[in-house]
């Protein structure tokens, strides 16, 4: 049904324009204009800013590390996220609602707190499991497993929140039909369930990726910020800025921002296609 009341005298041009200007103005001052300035700073000397930045071995290492950690975190979250979604929607068990509420927790927790939590458990010297793990050659804190875990934690809910509603809407009729025709659990999953939720998975993955690339606080706590070794791109930005290597800071920021916006655009472009397909 129509979303715009067409009644006589309904639209007051003054109010409509007033609201539009207010909204556009607010977004302009808060998001658009400042973002534009980052772009300006980055390209102040044309492409040399970015080129110099990319030639810095610290930057190269940081970007590579960020990419590796993010991809790994996204993959882990994909498997886990889809699994948990299936668990929450298709199975009933005591504590299900608690689990559902807990899944949303990472969104409300400060990244520094996340880092702290992981450190307390896995720190090699005084953590719970830390010493035991290190004795077996597995170092979590100040090393990449910790960073992956931290990134996993913060992006955890994103895939679940996209997949769960779609799973609920699909209903398990089709899965039941498949099973009655003899399909095994895995076959049902791969041929029936996955195609049904594939767009939700895609959004979840893209959003997860954007979030993982951007993680700062948690990773900083867990990784210890050793340049060239455990410094991710985001942490690098802070260090470079504070060392007055601002152009580099802006260039790397631009790259990160560009990746994030790209993710958003991909999701925005894919959504109409997905709704055309839905039942």
């Amino acid at each position, binding site marked *: 049904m129509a979303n715009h009341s067409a009644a006589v005298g309904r639209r007051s041009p003054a109010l409509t324009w007033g609201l539009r200007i207010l909204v556009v103005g607010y977004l302009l001052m808060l*998001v658009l204009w400042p973002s534009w*300035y980052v772009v300006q700073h980055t390209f102040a000397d044309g492409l040399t800013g970015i080129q110099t930045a990319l030639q810095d071995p610290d930057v190269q290492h940081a970007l590579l590390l960020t990419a590796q950690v993010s991809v790994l975190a996204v993959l882990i979250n994909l498997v886990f996220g889809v*699994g948990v979604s299936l668990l929450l929607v298709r199975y009933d068990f005591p504590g299900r609602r608690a689990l559902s509420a807990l899944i949303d*927790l990472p969104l409300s927790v400060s990244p520094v707190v996340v880092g702290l939590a992981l450190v307390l458990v896995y720190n090699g010297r005084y953590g719970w499991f830390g010493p035991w793990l290190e004795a077996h050659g597995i170092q979590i804190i100040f090393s990449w497993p910790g960073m992956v875990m931290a990134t996993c934690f913060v992006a955890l809910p994103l895939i679940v929140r996209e997949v769960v509603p779609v799973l609920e809407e699909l209903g398990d009729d089709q899965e039941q039909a498949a099973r009655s025709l003899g399909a095994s659990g895995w076959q049902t999953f791969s041929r029936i369930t996955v195609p049904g939720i594939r767009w939700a998975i895609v959004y979840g993955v893209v959003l997860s990726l954007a979030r993982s690339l951007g993680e700062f606080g948690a990773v900083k706590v867990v990784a210890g910020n050793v340049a060239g070794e455990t410094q991710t791109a985001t942490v690098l930005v802070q260090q470079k800025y504070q060392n007055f290597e601002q152009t580099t800071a802006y260039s790397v920021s631009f790259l990160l921002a560009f990746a994030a916006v790209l993710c958003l655009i991909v999701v925005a472009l894919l959504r109409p296609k997905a709704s055309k397909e839905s039942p």
Partner: protein
Amino acid sequence: MIWFSVLVLIPLAAIVVKASGGGWHTYADTFSNSQTLDAIKLTVGTSLLVTALNMVMGTIIAWVLVRDRFPGKALLDLVIDIPFALPTIVAGLVLLSLYGADSPLGLHFANTRSAVFLAIAFVTLPFVVRTVQPVLEEMETDVEDAAASLGASRAVTFRRIVLPTLVPAIFAGASLSFARGISEYGSLVLLSGNLPHHTEVTSVRVMSYLEGGNTAAAASVATILLVVALLAIVALDVIARRVARRDGRDG
């Protein structure tokens, strides 16, 4: 499938661990530390103000996105999501470029309390908008036409018919906005200057305790943050239900 839940519990257990990592006397010490206290006051106070702003602006933005039509509106929709996807440290740089020392507008907010407000407003922008938007989209204009046919002006229709329907969504968004606000770290690191007693937020405080090796204090402050977030979520839920009930049941 059971082993999946185990995987969730490990990081979550870590939080419980952190909470118990404090010990009672540490809480007392932390609270009596005036620097920490100021940080908490600043964080909670600013987040409350920003949340209030978001409740109003978020609803207006959602309204314009759903009810208005003009070229470039889809672009605006994308812009709303930028604060959500952008790395927080980059957000700090972004705001610094317009409102920092080199500001072309002459607005020098860096290292001031306004910077804290600005950064938190930036990162919490999407929350109320995104919870209100689907509710507005679902709303049929029939009820607004009905109110008009009964003599209600546009303002009355909005106040008595539209707004009550939106209240739960606005408050849900407000919870998220507040929780996010008090947790903010990355964007404030560069922008606020982290001046003790003045522009230092709670997460920065936790960070300094950590870097100083005082994990017990860090843990206690972190717990306080979590408790505040939890209280806020519960309080907002209660208020939302109170407001919704007021309009409905008498008569």
